[in-house]
């Protein structure tokens, strides 16, 4: 029984003994829909008639028990299982291969009662973050985790990619909003971590699964930290002569503990594309800020920020903030425009210390812009910390003749990843590694990567959970 086919037959045969037939499907429509996540290389590849590789089966578990049962069975027959959330991941972390089985966790969409005293809520991994936030808002609370993929991403996927949201500069990434987890390990054992605000009992177990891209376990419940919904917000915009002046201003703000939830600094190329209706700021850098909270402290914070920011730039009308708020989830208008002229794009987010950000920015812009076929490299800085921030590059271009889409993508990625590594930055701030960035994971972690591989080896020796992702070797898939 050693070929995949034989093992798969046995697996499939046994599946039906416990799982009702409406919880798995080998219909070609289902398999083809799960043949990719939102990895642009594959999204555009499909649109441009590239090859499609479909998984063998799609599973629709509805409970932790279903998941544990499936994992045990997959383990017995060595069947690769690809956990799938909202499918909005952009680096191929949920991309299945043809000899694999996709497990869509969207059916685990339990939303518990709000625990008002402790300000926590327990939810299933399949809850759309949009639905959760709406539910919380209707009761006067918020998680305030609002990625641009707000309508599409699910709690489990967000945790498994170590995601961050647009309001992160004050509230942090998903790691800061997560208290505890229930996880099904690759051997089928279910673990649950304790609900406490902090403890000193060894390394934090939750950390193993945050950003693990489903390779160490399947998240089946999460306890999240919530807060009362803020009732005051102040929107501000500032203009700087150039991007680096804006970075300096933000650094000083962060130095003195001013962290508005939304901090977005656009370079002139991105201003040109997104804020063309404000001709007076053409060629400049634009900063959008949203401060929020419950009382006068918000006003004081905005006032202090103003004092600092005015040293480096000038206050501008807050209209662009409203515009951004209004349009921020609409990615499709832009994508359809880009595709209709035969162009493609990708977004690459990286992080670095304040001292490294200028050189990362300058070098990435220089090198990426000179790649044949690249039309634009736009950048914004968002997600700030006292010590540095995230640079988010959007690269658009048309693959030159005789170069495939895949070769074009890889040349852009290689250039940017290597430049970032050279200048001391990290290759990803929040999208993760998946298949797209695997090649650089060893350089990112140095010898630390052995720790991640050893953990995989001991938890999942039969390589059943999302094999080859995150820490796999490049030639393995």
């Amino acid at each position, binding site marked *: 029984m050693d070929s995949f086919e034989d093992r798969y037959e046995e697996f499939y045969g046994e599946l039906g003994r416990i799982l009702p037939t409406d919880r798995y499907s080998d*219909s*070609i*429509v*289902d398999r*083809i*829909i*799960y043949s990719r996540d*939102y990895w642009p290389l594959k*999204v*555009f590849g*499909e*649109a441009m*008639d590239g090859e*499609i590789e479909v998984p063998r089966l799609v599973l*629709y578990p509805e409970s932790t028990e279903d998941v544990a049962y499936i994992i045990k069975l997959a383990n017995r027959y060595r069947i690769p299982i690809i956990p*799938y959330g*909202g*499918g*909005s991941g952009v680096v191929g972390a949920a991309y299945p291969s043809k000899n694999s089985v996709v497990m*869509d966790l*969207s*059916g685990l*969409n339990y939303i518990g009662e709000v625990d008002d005293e402790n300000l926590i809520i327990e939810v299933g991994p*399949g809850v*759309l973050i*949009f*639905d959760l936030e*709406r539910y919380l808002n*209707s009761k006067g609370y918020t998680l305030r985790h609002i990625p641009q*993929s707000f*309508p*599409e991403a699910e709690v489990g996927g967000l945790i498994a990619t170590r995601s961050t949201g647009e309001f992160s500069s004050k509230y942090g990434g998903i790691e800061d909003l997560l208290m505890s987890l229930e996880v099904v390990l690759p051997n089928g054992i279910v673990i649950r971590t304790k609900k406490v605000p902090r403890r000193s009992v060894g390394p934090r177990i939750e950390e193993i699964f945050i950003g693990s891209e489903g390779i160490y376990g399947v998240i089946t419940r999460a306890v999240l930290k919530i807060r009362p919904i803020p009732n005051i917000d102040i929107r501000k915009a500032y203009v700087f002569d150039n991007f680096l002046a804006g970075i300096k201003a933000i650094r000083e703000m962060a130095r003195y503990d001013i962290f508005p939830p939304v901090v977005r600094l656009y370079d002139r190329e991105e201003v040109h594309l997104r804020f063309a209706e404000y001709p007076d700021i053409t060629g400049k850098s634009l900063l959008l800020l949203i401060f929020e909270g419950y009382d006068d402290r918000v006003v004081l914070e905005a006032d202090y920020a103003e004092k600092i920011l005015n040293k480096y730039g000038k206050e501008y009308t807050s209209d662009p903030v409203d515009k951004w708020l209004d*349009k921020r*989830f*609409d*990615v*499709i*208008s832009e*994508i*359809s425009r880009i*595709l*209709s002229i035969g162009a493609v794009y990708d977004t690459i987010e990286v992080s670095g210390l304040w001292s490294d950000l200028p050189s990362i920015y300058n070098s990435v812009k220089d090198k990426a812009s000179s790649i044949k076929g690249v039309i634009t490299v736009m950048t914004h800085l968002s997600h700030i910390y006292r010590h540095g921030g995230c640079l988010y590059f959007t690269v658009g271009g048309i693959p030159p003749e005789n170069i495939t889409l895949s070769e074009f993508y890889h040349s852009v990625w290689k250039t940017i990843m290597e430049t970032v590594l050279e200048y001391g930055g990290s290759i990803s701030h929040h999208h993760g590694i998946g298949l797209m960035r695997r090649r650089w994971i060893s350089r990112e972690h140095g010898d630390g990567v052995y720790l991640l591989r050893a953990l995989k080896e001991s938890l999942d020796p039969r390589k059943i959970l999302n094999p080859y992702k995150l820490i796999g070797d490049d030639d393995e898939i």
Partner: protein
Amino acid sequence: MKYEEICAVCPGICKPACPVYKVLPRQPVSPQGIIRSIALFRKGHVEASELYNIFHCVACGYCIKACPIDNPVIDIILEARGRYGYEELEVKQPEVISIDGNRYVWIMSGECESIYLDNLRRLIPRLSESLTIIDASGIYRTYYLGNEGSYEIYKDRLVQLLDEVNADWIFTDSIELTSMILKVADHDIYLDIELLYHHIKDKNIALKENIREPIIYFSSCNPLANDKAKGYTLKILDMLNVEYIDGREYTHMNCCGAGGIYRYTNNNISEKMAKHLYNELSNIGGSILFDNWKCRDHLDRYINVSHLFEIMDLVI
């Protein structure tokens, strides 16, 4: 780019708006999943007979409202159903089932006639003397299952019946039906609540005693004509002088599953949708009001709801 090609490259911004996805949270039945599979079919990756998911849509239109570029999802799905849907569709053709006189002609779209009619007759007594009923309950199957050929035949037959009865007023309980027939026939067709409005607007009417305020009004989700229906309902509620709240502020479950085709093709999902909506509405307090009889009828199995006809008394 064609509409379906745009959906195929979209991450699915409209996903949370889809009531079917809410009860069956699987990518292939999300609006994006349905349209993407149609696009993949057009490229030869899927056979027409495998497009099962095109029947997983109740045509509520909420995805279109949520779509930043208003992609016409319903048109794409109904067109696909028309082309690749059930070819051997059995449809009950429209027929005149009762003639008490033909001053009023009621085109009935569902199987709910008796309590519905009792209520309507209570409020418009003249209806008892003079009513022609045309059974058009097959229209849902032809329209939503999208068999284009059969729908054309159906529509022609219906218009022919309307021409034969020489009515003063033609009305219907079905918003979709009204809009569709209006497109082809040279008749003025009124919604039932519109007719009601015309009849009671100068009369003295009051809220029934057992109805608790606030009224939680849940308008029909059908995008083809819900603004029209809502307009009349709100006028009537104004006349009644009652306090009402828009039910959609309390739930993101946009459709109860009564419409579309689920009650014929997949009753299980239709019931799940009703229960989901019920769970969200049940703890608001107050009386829940619909102005679409099919929604009222569908939800009535789980929760105490009323139709506009049922909340008012004529005070003589």
